[in-house]
């Protein structure tokens, strides 16, 4: 890295300082850490606002209104009106004016999410679960059967663990013994799942640390 004062050097120096300020949390909460956090939050919000204006509002709303045809202008009035009504949410007195726009947003988002979940996740996953023990085309039938059996048992027992139906007995609500036994096995699979999640998070954090340490070392090595 060149020692001359260049935009790359300034950018690298700022990155180095911010990285060190964040790592200073090792000694506890301190002003340097809080300053770095505030800078990140502010920069992120400002950058998101700039992106929303330059890539959403201007090209998709105001540019058609200003320079578009009649059809584009008419179609742009609808989102403009809904957007203005949504701004009414800023004041409690006029918040109800934004209810139609909010209802539209929530309704569309819910419809999109539910439709995608059913058609893109639920049905394909159920179909895939029915082919766990299908050895057609498998390189090793026993391995396929073993793997499919593990997935089948794990799926059933995990579902059984989350089955909270119980009979009302004299000693209190009591689950069916079979369901209770399956639930105990399901707890083991759930524990493995949480362990895998923790390992994945730890691996991601470790990779981020390696990237930052490598950056610091390269920056310092470039200075000297």
């Amino acid at each position, binding site marked *: 890295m060149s020692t001359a004062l260049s935009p790359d050097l300034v950018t690298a120096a700022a990155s180095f300082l911010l990285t060190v300020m964040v790592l200073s949390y090792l000694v506890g909460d301190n002003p340097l850490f809080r300053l770095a956090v505030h800078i990140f939050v502010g920069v992120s919000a400002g950058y998101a606002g700039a*992106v929303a204006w*330059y890539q959403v509002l201007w090209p998709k709303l105001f540019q058609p209104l200003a320079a578009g045809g009649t059809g584009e202008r008419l179609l742009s009035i609808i989102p403009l009106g809904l957007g203005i009504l949504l701004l009414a949410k800023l004041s409690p007195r006029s918040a109800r004016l934004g209810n139609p726009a909010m209802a539209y947003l929530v309704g*569309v988002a819910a419809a999109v999410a539910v439709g*995608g979940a059913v058609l893109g996740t639920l049905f394909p996953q159920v179909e*895939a679960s029915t082919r766990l023990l299908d050895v057609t085309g498998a390189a090793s039938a026993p391995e396929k059967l073993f793997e499919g059996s593990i997935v089948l048992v794990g799926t059933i027992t995990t579902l059984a663990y989350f089955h909270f139906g119980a009979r009302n007995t004299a000693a209190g609500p009591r689950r069916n013994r079979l369901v209770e036994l399956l639930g105990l096995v399901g707890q083991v699979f759930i524990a493995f799942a949480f362990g895998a999640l923790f390992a994945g998070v*730890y691996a991601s954090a470790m*990779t981020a640390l390696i990237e930052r340490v490598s950056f610091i070392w390269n920056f310092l090595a470039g200075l000297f």
Partner: protein
Amino acid sequence: MAEIACPTCGKTNPDGVAACQFCGTSFQPAPGGAAIHPGEKPVKKATAEFEGVRPKPSDDDLIRPGDPPVKKKTSELEQALPSWLKNLRGHPDQPPEPAPDEPPAPAPAGEAERVEFPDWLAGLEDDKTRVEEEQVPDWLANLRGRMQEEGEVPPAASPPDTPAAPAVDDLPREEMPGWLSRLGDGEAVLKDAVARPAIHPDENARPLPRENTSPTGAGTDQPVPEARLPGEEPDWLSRLQPEADYLPLETAGEALMPGGGLAGTPTARPGEEIPDWLAAAAGVAAAEGSPASPGGPAGVTPALIAGGEESPARTDSSLPLESPDWLSTIKPEQAPAPGPAAETGDGQVDGSLEPAQLPTWVQAMRPVESVVAAAPLGESEELPAEEQGPLAGLRGVLPAAPGMGAFRKPPAYSIKLQASEDQARNAAQLERLVAGEGQRSELPEPSLLGPARILRWVVALLLLLAVLLPVASGMQVAPDLSGYPPEMVAARNVVQDPALVPVNAPVLIAFDYEPALAGELEAAAAPLIDNLLFTGARLALVSTIPSGPALAERFMLETQSFHQYTGGEEYVNLGYLAGGPAGILDFAIDPPAAAPVTPGGADAWSLPPLAGVRELGDFTLLIIVTDSADTGRAWIEQASSHLQGRPVLMVISAQAEPMLRPYYESGQVQGLVTGLAGGKAYEQSIQRPGLGTAYWTAFSAGLFISVLIILAGGIWSLAGEPGSRKPYRVTEKP
């Protein structure tokens, strides 16, 4: 000893006391202040003294919801019944016997009707005689006998079935008090003693002691006073004696009517000024020829007194003699039409009292037992009785005057919470918890060199050394992977398959990860994109995260500079897709409409990388680079159905793998590169070292140290501090 009945609480007090010993009510007339005149402003008076009048009910007397009705013996309440009611019960079907020397009085209106008594009164008949004997003192019985002989007192004034008591004259000398026997003439003394309370208007202002009418002291438990010589008589008695000369015995007899109907009745003396209201009332009564008090001069007894039973209450001695003008003008007219039929057999004026005509349901609503039982026996005799309405016959129910009368508190119902011991214990525990929330607990000041802080520094130092040493030294001590993950192999096969990804084919790449995980995802995606770019693929970059377009530019600049791809020529950045899943769906349906321009404002779909692409299916490959399972799932759910069978590859963070791997297992995703390990494997498989290889040794060392620390911590927790792992036991504090 004579007793004075308190007009407020009704309890008896010894004679001579200035105030009630129970409620503190003064017996002395207020100097002109007790009367309430029209137009006067209300004066706030202390009523605390009345609080002690009424006995407080105990918890046993309370009637709680759900309690079964308990049958009570009501015969003992007989003494609380008014005398007229007793008389009615004693002779329900025969009129009172008229006096032998008196012309027969017309039958009272109340007698003409057949009176039906409720059940609650039926049980009292058996004790009638005993009660009459108990409640009629001897002196009164003697007096009645004497009066009946003289024909001056209506026989109805005494119960017809009252056993004949010996007259005063019939009493032997030995049974007379000494002072009475020395006087010689019992009748004269009786006149004197009876007439005194009704003589002086001033005396009427003070409560009329009923016992004053019994000079012999009979019927009381007090010792009989010794006889006094004329010179030894008290002053008040001396003043009263001359006045007995002009007081007719008839008037005295009226003053002794049962119930005290004439007690305290103002009687004018000759030459003494008569109040206007009294004169007017007397005039009206005389003009109408009221026979309400036969045998007595109509001009002496006001019409309002002779008009009904309310006289005792209205003429209570505690009330001042001053009557407002409106009352003096109203009462004579309001008095019931006098007539012979208006008087019942017991001497009380019937008036509008028609209890037999009340509906049964109204009688059933009368709070007889509860009210009568609450009133002490003997007290109710002194209280005014109601004449009409559902409360007819009850004494002390309504105050005699505003601000006076029986001051009763409403029955106090228990508000004690009915809770079990467990509930009480839980409530107490909750109360302690709530109280503890308000107590400020001082947090210990963290010491700079505390054990936890030192342990944290040790752990951080070990990890930093494990990461820094391989990076600084450039050592590659970690062994290469012996095998490749099948999902990574599947992704590589897709990229390297010319049938799936032809040369110079358009490829859509979604950069949906946060800057914090850019190091991991850049290391994972770099070998895949590098392998793809060798095919000359035209790239379209898009993101659903505002920072995604910038990260995409950084990725191309930092990791793919070898291929010398330039924006607008070999790749195009479509920018940011707003709306999350809805934006993805919008882009999948109509990509040119969803992302028309580049971040620089250029028409993206007219640039060379997107030549011939108008819909999502025109892209030969979709690569999703994300660190979020939600974002990856949204892309699969919303875009996979519009890809028209084009393959989908995912480069994901290691933390999102458990959530997104099922999509690879189900065949919705054709290849998967996971984290730094996936990138290292891909680099190793294509023999092109990159960031994955550079970070691999540090990554392996860091994980190794982390595993050691976790194991050490586990061993320390199990063996090093055995006392700190006591089994959690739920204990209930008392």
